[in-house]
């Protein structure tokens, strides 16, 4: 019954909701970002981060630091927090938390398969995988020659198995097929996650529907823009769009035939939530589109914390931490390349 979660939620989810709200208060503030943006070197960034929750993860790193090291250690913190919550969670929250990591799992599968196609060492590829997306037998992916083998040898025993039904072929894997496989898997994952949240019902369904619909719409726009000028046909492009979201189905029909960024803009401006995003951009510009989408996403994720007794706070916290790590990565790159004037091009303030 929607509205009566307060009676029973805290029995199984109260402790973890309190934990995640405590973690949320540890997110970096605008003052922290202002200090970080004024750093001259990566060691200065490390010094400023030592006063935050990232301190214990960076304190033992020797100089000279590298930007990938900072990102790696900050990601480790997120992984530790996630694992603590997962081991404390009961059903259905544990399944919900696992769903959050399937996106990283898909990215890791594609990384291993692509790297193997390019004759890279498997160990080197495993080091580059996201820790949230690791699973047993991931290294066995390197032996597969086509998608059918990929499914039969490895993925049949993973949570991604149900998502392969739409993309199993015997064609040999190449760069374009792998990209289509990635997007097809992600589409199937998003739709499955959406159905799961709908089944949970209540405030979780309401809040997660909004967040996942925004994710699906953003992916549709990114697929459209990235496929402009490539060999991807309109039909193939349409097949990669998810079957839910504000743009489904009429927005997808228009996006499928767009040939340049201005046509995409014309299509998106018909939808009021996205009109505000595209109004920040000048005609023909795509550089600031990512930042505009991230800002809108952060706004929606922060709103998820305004309501209690739902699982959306866990999803929102994970996404906000990932955004924070992206911010730290961008600041580190600008400092390392001595381009501090460009630091505000991509930093999205959370609070």
């Amino acid at each position, binding site marked *: 019954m929607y509205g009566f979660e307060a009676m029973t939620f805290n029995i199984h989810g109260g402790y973890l909701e309190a934990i995640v709200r405590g973690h949320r208060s540890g997110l970096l503030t605008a003052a922290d970002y202002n200090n970080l943006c004024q750093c001259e070197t990566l060691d200065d960034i490390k010094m400023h981060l030592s006063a935050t929750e990232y301190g214990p993860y960076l304190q033992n790193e020797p100089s000279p630091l590298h930007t990938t090291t900072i990102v790696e250690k900050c990601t480790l913190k997120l992984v530790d927090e996630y694992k603590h919550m997962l081991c404390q969670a009961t059903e259905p929250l544990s399944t919900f938390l696992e769903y959050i990591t399937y996106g990283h799992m898909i*990215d890791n599968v594609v990384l291993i398969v692509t790297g193997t196609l390019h004759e890279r060492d498997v160990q080197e590829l495993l080091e580059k995988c996201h820790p949230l997306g690791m699973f047993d037998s991931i290294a066995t992916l390197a032996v597969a020659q086509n998608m059918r083998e990929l499914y039969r040898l490895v993925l049949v025993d993973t949570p991604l198995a149900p998502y392969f039904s739409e993309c199993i072929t015997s064609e040999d894997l190449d760069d374009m097929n792998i990209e289509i496989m990635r997007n097809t898997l992600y589409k199937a994952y998003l739709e499955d996650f959406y159905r799961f949240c709908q089944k949970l019902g209540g405030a979780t369904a309401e809040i997660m529907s909004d967040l996942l619909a925004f994710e699906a719409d953003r992916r549709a726009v990114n697929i459209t823009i990235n496929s402009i000028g490539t060999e991807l046909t309109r039909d193939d492009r349409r097949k990669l769009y998810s079957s839910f979201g504000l743009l489904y189905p009429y927005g997808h029909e228009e996006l499928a035939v767009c040939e340049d960024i201005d046509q995409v803009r014309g299509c998106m401006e018909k939808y009021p939530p996205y009109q505000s995003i595209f109004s920040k951009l000048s005609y023909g510009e795509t550089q600031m589109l*990512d930042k505009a989408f991230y800002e809108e996403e952060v706004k929606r994720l922060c709103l998820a914390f305004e309501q209690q007794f739902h699982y959306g706070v866990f999803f929102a916290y994970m996404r906000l931490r990932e955004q924070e790590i992206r911010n730290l990565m961008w600041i580190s790159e600008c400092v390392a*390349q001595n381009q501090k004037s460009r630091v505000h091009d991509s930093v999205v303030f959370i609070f």
Partner: protein
Amino acid sequence: MEEPKLQNLEEDDPKSQSLEEQANKAPSLKEGSMSQSLEEDPTPQSLKLQSLEKGDPKSQSLKEDSKSQNVEEGDSKSQSLKEGPKSLSLEENPKSLSLEEDPKSLSLEGRDKIAFSELNENSLQFLDSIDGYLTLLDSLSWTLRQGWLQLASARHSMGESRVSSALLDLKSHNASTFLQVTQQSDTETEQIHHFTLRKWASSDNDNGAPLMNMSPQIRQRKDKDGSPPPLKAETDHQHQLQKERTKSLLMFGGLVSPKLRAAQLSFESALDALVEIANMRSLMLSTFDKVREELEAAKAK
């Protein structure tokens, strides 16, 4: 360190100082302003030229020679300044002195004047090539900074796992860009290296030869068949180039961000700039050799 000594010597001789000021004010004489920039330090460009000269022991030795000449012949220096500020360049002073002090050598005047003008021309070419070299270095630095930032922006947008060195293709494949080095003979003994970049090998060619980035050649081939419009040939060429660029980005995935494409274009421009820098450096070294030879020949006289 050489400039203060030169200035001190000139202060001792007020006549030469006033003549030098007149020479420096002459706007039409580019040589005068160039030589002034060599010996005084008002502008950043001249600072670069000075730093280049300070770093170059050959030019330092040339300056020391001219300085020692100034110590020995103060009045004669002012007379040479009266003739024209050309004498304030890398040229040796005895040549101009001989024109003034020894009237009996007027029979050699024509030969000396030809050598004089050749030396000036080579000196100008040398200074022009230095200027071009420094400008290209600056442009390269800016282009590379832009490219690296765009690459970081693409990594930020697409994710660390999608833009990383772990995805670079280690399979054996043909080069997409070729550098051709030719030797051009400037004189009987002088040879200059010339570098030409040939970008984007076409996968449709059997021998893997690169697409010539020279649209006049394509126009020439087509003209034999009858005259299709050159604009269409240019459009096809651009389309082929775009196809090759997209193909090289496939290692990062089939659907990459526009930021990664922009980074690719920046690095491509940087490669073009590097080849231009190599050509400019080759020209610079060649003209410097000519100037040095002429100065040594003048010294021997």
